């Protein structure tokens, strides 16, 4: 049983559980699924400054912070007790492409060649951590949601603005992956 759980879980199981988050949140508390809002609530709670956008009663949205806290705890539990000792199995094309860029370490979920503290103070590290993170935080709020709020919650409730957002997420990701990242990886 434990051995089976330690294997990577299939997409349909993960997708079903993530999809069930939508009715769970709606039915236990009339909440709509969305994760990036947590960053806004953290701004409102810790550093509202004099910004109108952060002046609201964030405590009413505290459930969202409890939710993301749970995500971190869940990932910790899985990494501690259910970790798969084998390297991640990648599609052949992706593996070959990344190897051509010097990324060959697949023993972790994130490539050790990029995601380490030693890399932080390189130009590439600066882009991957600081610039990338900034774009995620700025972009999701500008778009009014992320993969959870738009792609899953929004599409589940047939909201076409969410479809527009989801299409743009994919356009951005594809542009970066095919036209910019090849250069960034070799910095």
């Amino acid at each position, binding site marked *: 049983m434990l051995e089976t759980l330690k294997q990577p879980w299939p*997409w349909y199981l*993960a*997708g*079903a*559980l*993530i*999809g069930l988050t939508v*009715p769970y*949140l709606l039915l*236990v*508390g*009339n909440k*709509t*699924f969305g*994760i990036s809002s947590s*960053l*806004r609530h953290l701004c409102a709670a810790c550093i509202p400054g004099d910004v*109108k956008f952060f*002046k609201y*009663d964030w405590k*009413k*949205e505290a459930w969202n912070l409890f*939710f993301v806290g*749970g*995500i971190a*705890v*869940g*990932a*910790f*539990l899985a*990494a501690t007790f*259910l970790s798969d000792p084998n390297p*991640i199995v*990648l599609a052949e094309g992706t593996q070959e492409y990344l190897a051509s860029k010097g990324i060959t370490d697949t023993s972790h*979920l*994130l*490539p050790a060649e990029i995601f380490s503290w030693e890399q932080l103070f390189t130009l590439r590290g600066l*882009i*991957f951590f600081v610039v*990338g*993170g900034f*774009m*995620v*935080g*700025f972009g*999701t*709020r*500008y778009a009014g*949601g992320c993969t959870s709020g738009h792609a899953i919650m929004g599409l*589940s409730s047939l909201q076409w*603005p969410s479809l527009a957002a989801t*299409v*743009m*997420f*994919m*356009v*951005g*990701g*594809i542009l970066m992956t095919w036209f*910019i990242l090849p250069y960034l990886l070799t910095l």
Partner: protein
Amino acid sequence: MEKTINKTPAVETNTDFEVRSLDTMCVNESQVERPWWDNLKYSAWGVLFGIVFFKAEIISWFRIQEMFRFESFHMYGVIGTAVVVGLISVQLIKRFNIKTVQGEAVVIPNKTFNKGQVYGGLLFGLGWAITGACPGPLFAQIGAGYSVIIVTFLSAWAGTWVYGYFRDKLPH
């Protein structure tokens, strides 16, 4: 029996409805008062969510690369299944008028279209392919012990703040 309170908030809540509808904030926030530990039901689901994120390798930078390179079905399968399950759930809730556990009617606020979904969406997509993580996986990666992602998280936090600061000057 739980007490329902009429809407006269003590603290000035955000009355800017454009802001609210833009932001998946609860426009229809429940008026039933509940103790703080009631929020643990969200933490519990978050824990399950975090385990799934880790075990299905959704928090993996490699899986996001595969997705954007169209070389693996995995992430499309995850998101596609999630949308189908969510869609069926929402339809069932609407069709049978299923109430929340507190007995309230389920309300899903409508999102209104604005240019932010285009510009912001594009910007997020570009960042997503670099970091290999949207906001949810950031929390999971940190929890799973990838401590350097704290930097990414702090930067995302700063990005949200800067957006809030310049919000009025940006096209929407």
